[in-house]
């Protein structure tokens, strides 16, 4: 496994904080300013996106869930592009045709998401099938929450991936709730990773709030995938600090539970680790924080200053005129 250089650590920290700060500003703008998109933020879960994507190659593909903001950032979607997308401006991905949390970007290896929970999981089987048939060694990484693992799509897709030994990694962001329904109610097992056994694939449980743990375990899964050893179900245990969306009618989760998980903040945890291990100084991280804040501020201004798409563009691109593929 590649040993992380200081620059890698700093970049991973920057991406964690960028994800956190971007979403905090999105929430703020949704409640106090006209942000068109209803935010479904990953605050508290950032270590999964960042840890699982930081070791991806440019030709690897991600298939994000609705709450995988950091994955876009790692894959190179710019803050401007992301923010303009959330503001529904013409400068966002898809020129306002799609929400930012489902954005697709052909050149960056981002498969557009689905508003149907888990509906994108089979697509990752297909992108991986293409890799296998063409003898290419890119991996496909599919993200989804605990709720999606009760969809038929999940079961069918994992079975297909396993029987065909495809280079795909299924990353379950288990934040313990499907909107209001606790995982303790909606699955009868403690670890969703146990489901992997039913398909004959490797299942791994990892602390989803520990970016290095996610990085290490996902790397092992990608290595297996590239070597033709088949798919992995990587369950990352985590927690979302906020509601399912910013328009939830109520939140019945126990206060103590929320506070306990906030104490395990993945950004703070990693920050403290870097300082305690002597990898970075407080000042260095402060400087990174400031640069991120400036970047997000710039992205917001860019989004606010950008126009909405011309109305008649709604009629463009329902059908492809020629073959444009990943």
């Amino acid at each position, binding site marked *: 496994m590649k040993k992380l250089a200081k620059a890698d650590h700093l970049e991973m920290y920057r991406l964690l904080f960028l994800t956190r700060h971007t979403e905090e500003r999105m929430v703020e703008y949704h409640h106090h300013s006209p942000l068109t998109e209803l935010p479904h933020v990953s605050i508290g879960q950032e270590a999964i996106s960042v840890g699982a994507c930081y070791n991806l190659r440019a030709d690897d593909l991600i298939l994000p869930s609705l709450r995988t903001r950091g994955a876009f950032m790692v894959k190179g979607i710019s803050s401007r592009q992301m923010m303009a997308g959330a503001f529904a401006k013409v400068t966002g991905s898809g020129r306002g045709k799609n929400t930012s949390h489902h954005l697709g970007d052909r050149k960056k290896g981002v498969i557009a998401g689905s508003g149907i929970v888990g509906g994108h999981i*089979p697509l990752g089987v297909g992108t991986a099938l293409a890799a296998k048939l063409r003898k290419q060694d890119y991996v496909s990484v599919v993200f989804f929450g605990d709720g999606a693992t009760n969809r*038929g799509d999940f079961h069918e897709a994992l*079975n*297909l991936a396993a029987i065909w030994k495809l280079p795909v990694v299924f990353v379950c962001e288990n934040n313990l709730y499907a909107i209001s329904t606790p995982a303790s109610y909606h699955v009868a097992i403690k670890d969703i990773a146990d489901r992997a056994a039913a398909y004959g694939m490797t299942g791994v449980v990892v602390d989803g709030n520990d970016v290095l743990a996610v990085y290490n375990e996902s790397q092992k899964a990608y290595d297996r995938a590239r070597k033709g050893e088949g798919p992995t179900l990587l369950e990352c245990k985590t927690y979302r600090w906020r509601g399912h969306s910013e328009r939830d009618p109520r939140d019945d989760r126990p206060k103590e539970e929320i506070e306990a998980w906030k104490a395990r903040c993945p950004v703070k945890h990693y920050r403290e680790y870097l300082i305690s291990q002597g990898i970075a100084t407080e000042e260095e991280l402060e400087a990174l924080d400031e640069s991120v804040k400036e970047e997000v501020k710039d992205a917001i201004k860019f989004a606010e200053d950008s126009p909405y798409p011309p109305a008649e563009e709604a009629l463009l691109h329902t059908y*492809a005129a020629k073959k444009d593929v990943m």
Partner: protein
Amino acid sequence: MKKITMREAIREALMEEMEIDADVILIGEDIGSYGGTLQVTAGIWDKFGSERVIDTPISEAAITGAAIGAAMMGMKPVVELMFSDFLPIAADQLVNNAAKMCYAYDGDMSVPLVIRAPFGAGSRSGMHHSQNLEAWFTNVPGIKVLMPATAADAKGLLKAAIREPNPVIFLEHKLLYGVREEVPEEDFVIPIGKATIRREGKDLTIVSCGAMVNKSLRAAEELAKLGIDAEVVDLRSIKPLDTQTIVESVIKTSRLLITHEAPMIGGIGGEIAAVVSKEAFGYLDAPIERVGAQDTPVPFSPTLEDFYIPSEQRIIQTAREMFGK
């Protein structure tokens, strides 16, 4: 020109396109060495092997989703759904993924996918293996729907579908598989979105599709004996719809009867009637008539099923009423 069955014509189209383009792969249940439950892919696996003809578990949603993912990577998967009645299982993938990808990427993505699905009533197969679901998908922007009525069209349209950058649902009527017809031997495609006139006439336009085309042609011969000269239009493409050919025919004949095997309510006939009543209103000498199936599931028993399926007799009867004959 040689005479082959529609089943053979479809097989030829698949094999020819697989020869031309290494990205064309077949995916489906029991399509490999078994050759498909209706034997359409028989022999293809022997020639192209398991990497090009991929057998799957019974997982229509994931098969379709995986095909979409592969298509986004530039493969050209042709999925066989064993029966079109399984389309509802694959519908989320088709409606929410395949149909929307190009738009989601603002044109910077395509999904060159074909879903082949045997369909149609008349084989005593019961309510879950006999339906006509084509109209459902015409209401989904981003998907094209084809329905060949002849062996030659099946070959030419399927080749066009495989070369098409957009998702196509390709519907094969089960009762037409064995019909033997002339099919050109050279490489040819039938353009998507073009209807054809199967019989010229001056008194009445009968717009039909799939297995209703031959019934319409036979009905037209009977009507000719009564002095009604019917023109028979075969849609071939349910979406995009060739409204120009239809409207021009109605302008010529002044009367329109639309027939399809799908239930009349919500069928493609309603859309055609709406277009014609706007584009050719002043030319119509009689109200537009539709002959479609009843608002019931497809029944099993021969007496019930034969009563249910729109028949030649119903076309004749309806046409006669349009002329007061």
